[in-house]
């Protein structure tokens, strides 16, 4: 499986709400996981004083979310960021 194919599968799992499986598959390629994670962190850092709201109406500060991502904790609104970064990287890789 090429990296782009793997990312396409991760996207499909995320779209299906199968978040744990998506993360496991992505983490199976350490380099890809790191690239996607860095992309998510960059996206969060681009709005350092921003907030992100989850579907339960809970408010998260981007600075806190960066810490969670760095610690490998993925939840709620972070999966949206992950979905976009996976898609952008897949396109970069020609998938």
């Amino acid at each position, binding site marked *: 499986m090429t990296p782009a194919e793997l990312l396409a599968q991760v996207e499909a799992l995320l779209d299906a709400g199968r978040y744990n499986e998506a993360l496991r598959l992505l983490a199976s390629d350490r380099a890809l996981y790191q690239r996607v994670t860095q992309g998510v962190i960059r996206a969060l850092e681009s709005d350092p004083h921003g907030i*992100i*709201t989850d*579907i*339960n*109406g*809970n408010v998260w500060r981007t600075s806190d979310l960066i810490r969670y991502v760095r610690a490998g904790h993925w939840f709620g*609104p972070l*999966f*949206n960021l992950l979905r*976009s970064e996976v898609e952008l990287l897949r396109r970069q890789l020609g998938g």
Partner: protein
Amino acid sequence: MSLELMRRWVASLPPAERSLPLLHVGEAFYTPLQALREVEKGTTIGEKLQQLVEQGRFGTDLNALAKARLQLLLERAKGYEIASLSGISIPTDKLAKLVAQGDLSNPLIQELAEADLLLAQQALKLGKKLAGGGGK
């Protein structure tokens, strides 16, 4: 809705509205500014956000949206008290705590939520109008 129309929509909103949660996709709410950034990236989530604006839909139940928006609005009003017509006055941080706990049953919170959702609906109507070519 093109990227240009999306930009026009965001620019036409009151500044305070641009950074309040408005649209729901997947696991998160997006403010108009966050939605615009997502559309600029050209992602699938961005496409879904554009569709919501075109259709004038929030994409969620209104309780969750009210909770999200009220928390931020009350935080902006930190240090103030909000008074009702019946003479009750409650500090905004106390109200914010109730909202964060998901308790929207307080009459004052309900009044605030209803008033704020009207503003949110107006913001969406503006987007739908622009998408429909009625924004000139």
